């Protein structure tokens, strides 16, 4: 039974109240002055981050059980990933302040971000399939609206329609998977479902495999795994840039959290050789993402493909999870890092949209002199995404690939995943380096222009995070290893 004052419930209280109050306040004040709404949203998010941070640091959050009972599991796995989600929501809200200044309905906008955050936090904590599904929808429905928020812009509308169609199909597939799992085991608790799968009659195993496959497909839509990724670049390009940060860095990671809770555990209990399937998916995802990213001319589209590539790296961790404890740790560590890196990169794009009204590569020439702070943060996050030491992205990739090599003692092909990952990182360096060259070594005598202040603040905070945890990675590594559920 969930305690009345457990972390997830308190988080619902804080974020949900602020999210519900904002539109009412907006009606009362006739939407004047968007800064107040942003301040309220930031306050609620900061309070929840402080709460989760306290839970993590003080060790109140219990160690993660592989198969928790109850509806919501108040454990370290949930707390660490919830912290990542809330950090992204903070980044995205702060990045929206200048972006939303001249646009309509700011109160609704911030309220939707908060409600989507409640959904993501609940996805991460949920230990029951009903809860997982409701939280999944609470996370998805606000983001459909957010993607189409610039409703006079055809691109934004088209992005929202595509995202909506694929998202709705993904939820439908997830309900179908839940219905099969429920029919086979008679329970919706994830732990009981997994135990039921393990005790299944041999004639029913194909149905259980179908259920797990549908789960992978449903979560894979959000994660951007390769056969299900077509909507993703369109949605990220058309969406308002701060919303793209939220999608790429947070909702995608919520998909991974759900996959860890359901798929990895379910697959282990079925004792079928499934790691090869996930490994092949991982290699396909990272290769398609990185190769397509090279060909893009729009910065947000390139970042979208690069986030597909990163989904592939994280999937390596899930694929080797049963054979090496490092796999799960690396996945959680990389989820956390990628949240900050990709969030910061998309907020930098938001800065370009505000200051230059463009995201095309050609407009980047001389940006290093025009907007020095934004450019520096952007370049640091790009290099962290590529995994260059001593930035924090390097360490999480190192742990992931170490896990793959570590699993090599029982899986002969696992080290190849690490090799594919390293080759892909090298490939990604090509387009990150190309952007950097444009920003710093092209363009003639550009004058410095006014940088959006809140965006510059986000970039500074993100740069400090990336450099500090790159030089001193132990705290994050410790968090990731304390959050990784032990595989039975």
């Amino acid at each position, binding site marked *: 039974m969930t305690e009345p004052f457990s972390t997830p419930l308190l988080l619902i209280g804080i974020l949900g109240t602020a999210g519900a109050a904002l539109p009412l306040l907006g009606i009362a004040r006739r939407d004047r002055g968007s800064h107040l709404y942003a301040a309220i949203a930031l306050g609620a998010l900061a309070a929840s981050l402080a709460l989760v941070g306290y839970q993590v640091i003080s060790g109140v959050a219990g160690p993660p059980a592989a198969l928790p009972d109850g509806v919501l599991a108040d454990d370290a796995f949930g707390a660490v990933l919830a912290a990542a989600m809330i950090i992204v929501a903070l980044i995205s809200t702060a990045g929206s302040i200048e972006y939303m200044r001249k646009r309509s309905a700011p109160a609704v906008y911030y309220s939707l971000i908060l409600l989507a955050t409640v959904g993501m936090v609940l996805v991460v904590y949920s230990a029951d399939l009903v809860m997982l599904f409701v939280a999944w*929808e609470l996370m998805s429905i606000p983001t*459909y609206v957010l993607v189409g928020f610039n409703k006079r812009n055809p691109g934004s509308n088209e992005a929202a*329609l595509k995202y909506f169609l694929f998202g*709705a199909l993904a939820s439908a597939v997830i309900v*179908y998977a839940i219905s099969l799992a429920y*029919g086979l085991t008679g*329970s919706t608790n994830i732990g009981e479902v997994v135990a039921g799968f393990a005790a299944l009659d041999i004639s029913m195993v194909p149905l259980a495999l179908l259920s797990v496959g549908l789960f992978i497909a449903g979560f894979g839509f959000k994660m951007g795994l390769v056969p299900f990724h077509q909507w993703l670049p369109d949605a990220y390009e058309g969406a308002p840039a701060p919303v793209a940060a939220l999608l790429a860095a947070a909702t995608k990671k919520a998909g991974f959290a759900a996959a860890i809770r359901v798929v990895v555990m379910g697959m282990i209990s079925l004792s079928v050789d499934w790691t090869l399937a996930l490994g092949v998916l991982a290699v396909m995802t990272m290769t398609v993402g990185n190769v397509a990213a090279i060909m893009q*001319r729009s910065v947000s589209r390139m970042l979208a493909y690069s986030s597909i590539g990163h989904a592939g790296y994280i999937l390596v961790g899930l694929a080797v999870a049963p054979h090496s404890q490092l796999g799960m740790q690396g996945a959680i560590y990389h989820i956390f890092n990628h949240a900050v890196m990709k969030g910061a990169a998309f907020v930098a794009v938001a800065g370009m949209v505000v200051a230059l009204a463009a995201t095309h590569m050609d407009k980047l020439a001389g940006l290093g002199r025009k907007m020095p702070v934004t450019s520096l943060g952007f370049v640091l996050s790009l290099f962290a995404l590529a995994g260059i030491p001593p930035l924090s992205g390097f360490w999480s990739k190192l742990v992931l690939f170490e896990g793959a090599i570590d699993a090599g003692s029982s899986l002969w092909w696992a080290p190849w995943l690490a090799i594919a990952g390293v080759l892909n990182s090298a490939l990604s360096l090509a387009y990150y380096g190309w952007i950097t060259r444009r920003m710093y070594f092209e363009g003639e005598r550009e004058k410095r222009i006014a940088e959006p202040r809140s965006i510059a603040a986000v970039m500074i905070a993100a740069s400090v995070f990336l450099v500090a945890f790159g030089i001193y990675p132990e705290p994050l590594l410790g968090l990731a290893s304390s959050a990784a559920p032990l595989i039975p």
Partner: protein
Amino acid sequence: MAAELVDFALVSVALLGIGIYGLAVKRNFIRMLFAVEIVINAANLNLVAFARFIPDSGGQTLALFSIAIAAAEVAVGLSLIIVAYRMYQNVDVADFRSLRG
């Protein structure tokens, strides 16, 4: 003769197939939305049938949740379609091609 569990499962699988077919073939956005709804209802039928045969009330609870959430989802989808219709005077997905690359 009372319907067996297998009958419900067959209808549900047929609905799933119709939904996937609709999504793959149709190019009208509203039809595609209907196709997704059919898939959701296939799952709901499964849930209720399994709940009846296990017997356990959990599945029916989830089916109710799922119906309510699907309604919320359709509301958002239709409002997006209305915005698109005002812009293009059409809801054919083949017309949406401003994002490419």
